[in-house]
């Protein structure tokens, strides 16, 4: 578990254990200035990734403009050439990286490298190509299909790269396609859905993405390393818990619902209890526990607020609820700090055991 060195040093400084003149030097011990090699890596990655993003966005904008002077064949040729160039670039860069020669620029971390940048470029071109197909042949497809197909077609690239940014792109495209679909249709397999059910679906889809990445990372199998994407795990869990919390607030304040709300309570409590138990005992992590506790606090406050609306003397209840919120949040904070210490101790012990072996 990483400690926040900046905060530790600041705390020692405020306690008088570091003299004012040494604060800067102490921070530099914890966080030294980047050296020449670090800067070269940053500049190389920056121009590479920003260049690919700008070029990709430029091509998409160009196709969206639908320039009449350019024949359809030429438009297809531009996108397909770029796509082939990116794929070719990936094979060349990957070949160079696999040879015994040291790479000219090693990445900031495993993901930010030249082969993955090429796959990112190819993934953007897939989207541009799909949009152009729809525009040229007037396929009559709905916009949600474009995003869904885009997500499906770039899946192999994401698996090959095992790169956070590409997986994040897949997750965002799936959510966007789902959003556009429900905006247009509001039904699944002929079953008309209420808004409350759509929120639940968003929560469950993102929870599934989180589960998929967590399990794929945990299980020992050949593709394990391709699913090491903490950013995707964190954002999908956040999206899921925010959706489920919103769902519960909706359930609490939905005075005239036509659906059975008991199922939502059951779903919410089961999901929260499972996430809590998993990250408390099976795979200790502080971030999911913070999200679960914040969600539970929000649900409890919603319940109390509903009681307030039904109360005849709300003045005193406002203050009571405020104090309950303070009590709940400070209780959670206190408990999370205890757990943080416990997790850090466990991490330290397991690290010690591993180094002893």
């Amino acid at each position: 578990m990483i400690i926040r060195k900046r905060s530790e040093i600041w705390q020692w400084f405020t306690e008088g254990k570091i003299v004012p003149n040494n604060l800067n030097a102490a921070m530099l011990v914890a966080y030294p200035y980047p050296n020449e090699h670090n800067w070269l890596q940053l500049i190389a990655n920056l121009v590479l990734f920003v260049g690919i993003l700008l070029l990709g966005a430029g091509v998409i904008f160009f196709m969206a403009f639908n320039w009449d002077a350019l024949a359809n064949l030429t438009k297809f040729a531009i996108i397909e050439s770029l796509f082939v160039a990116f794929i070719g670039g990936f094979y060349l860069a990957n070949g160079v990286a696999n040879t015994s020669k040291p790479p000219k620029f090693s990445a900031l971390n495993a993901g930010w490298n030249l082969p993955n940048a090429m796959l990112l470029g190819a993934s953007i071109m897939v989207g541009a190509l799909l949009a152009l197909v729809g525009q040229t042949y007037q396929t009559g497809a709905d916009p949600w299909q474009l995003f869904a197909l885009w997500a499906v077609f770039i899946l192999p690239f994401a698996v090959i790269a095992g790169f956070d940014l590409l997986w994040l792109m897949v997750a965002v495209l799936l959510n966007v396609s789902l959003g556009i679909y429900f905006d247009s249709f509001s039904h699944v397999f002929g079953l008309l859905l209420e808004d409350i059910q759509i929120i639940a679906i968003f929560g469950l889809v993102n929870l599934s993405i989180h589960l998929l990445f967590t399990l794929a990372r945990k299980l020992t199998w050949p593709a394990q390393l391709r699913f090491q994407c903490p950013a995707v795990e964190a954002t999908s869990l956040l999206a899921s818990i925010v959706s489920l919390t919103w769902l519960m607030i909706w359930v609490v304040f939905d005075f005239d619902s036509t659906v059975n709300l008991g199922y939502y309570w059951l779903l919410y409590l089961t999901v929260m209890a499972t996430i809590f138990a998993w990250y408390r005992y099976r795979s200790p992590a502080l971030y999911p526990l913070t999200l679960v506790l914040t969600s539970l606090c929000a649900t409890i406050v919603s319940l109390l607020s509903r009681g307030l609306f039904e109360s005849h003397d709300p003045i005193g209840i406002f203050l009571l609820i405020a104090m309950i919120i303070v009590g709940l949040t400070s209780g959670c904070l206190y408990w999370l700090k205890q757990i943080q210490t416990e997790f850090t101790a466990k991490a330290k012990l397991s690290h010690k055991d591993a180094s002893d072996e």
Partner: protein
Amino acid sequence: MPAMSKSTNNPAQGSQAQLWQSLFNQGLVGNDIAPDTPLSSPWYIIGAQIIGGWIAALFILAFVLASIASVDDKEQSILVMGILITLGCLTYYRMGKSNQEFVLQMVFAFSISGQLMLLWGIYDALKHTDDGIIALMYTLVFALHWWLIPHKANQFMAAIAMVPSVLAILAIYQLSQLILPLLIVSLMLVWSQLYRWPQCYQRLRVLGYALSLNLLFANFALSDMGRWMDLPEVLLAFDARFSHYLAVIMVLLSALWLIHQVFNQLSTQPIELTNTAQLSRVKFIAILSAILISLLSIPMAGISTALLMLLLGYFYNEFKLLALAIGALVSFIGLYYYSLHINLFDKSLWLMASGVVLLLIRLAMALSIGKTIANKEQRHDVQ
């Protein structure tokens, strides 16, 4: 390893002990026994604390409003209540000794609530006078909180609110063209002077983040994308183009100053990978890239600002600033689609041309550095 053995009775303190030992080895601390300090909270716990504090503050505000509903002079009462609660909280923050979570969270909620009442009261009391005076009063309230409160979450909230209050004064007095340049200069000043006054380190750091967030928002609001939002007319009624050019120049000057700082700092380090000629070549590439990116910012608002923040975050090892800048960079490229000042065709050409130029720079860098490494290896073989 005496310090490690002494301080690792509680294994949670192990990493702290290593850090302490590094400081001791550098002669920055007096003894080799790491103090038993509680672990600091990560950002998401502080985020949850802020959300909880805000919701509680709104309920407290509702309670006070409901309580004084029958009072004749409601405006004055709310101002007085705001002053009393705010002063009470400030006094507690300066003099209080309790570190109990409940007490700290309650004071935080009351402090936010008191500030909201104070703002309401000030607006009601001064609404018939100059708007600039109201904005000035708001600035003073937030500045006082930012300066006097040691509580990090509260300090951050005050800093976040203080910056737009200052900007509102500029907008009210028709000086809106100075908003972006002032934000950029302040950002550079704050981050570069972080350690000048060690006692103010935390204050300046939260101000640095507040300025960064406000700068990103200002870039968004003052560009064409701002039309999406229902912004006050006063904020948009100025020569945006002039302000924009001024901001681009300021970003370029700031980037050049930062590049100068970086190379000054690099020249003090032992050069491992390359030689001095190599360093000069890299400096030339860096300056060229800064100029190109600044030129790109003329049609594409916000890009150069996000890149400047990215460089600042990397130089000062501020991971959150770095992540914020990367997110802003991707957003500004995406939002450019909705920019109305040039047509989609021109936009696409700008984007493609700039993308190709950056990729060519990357290719030139790879060839240049590759050649240097090859020469170095060759020399090594000869020796």
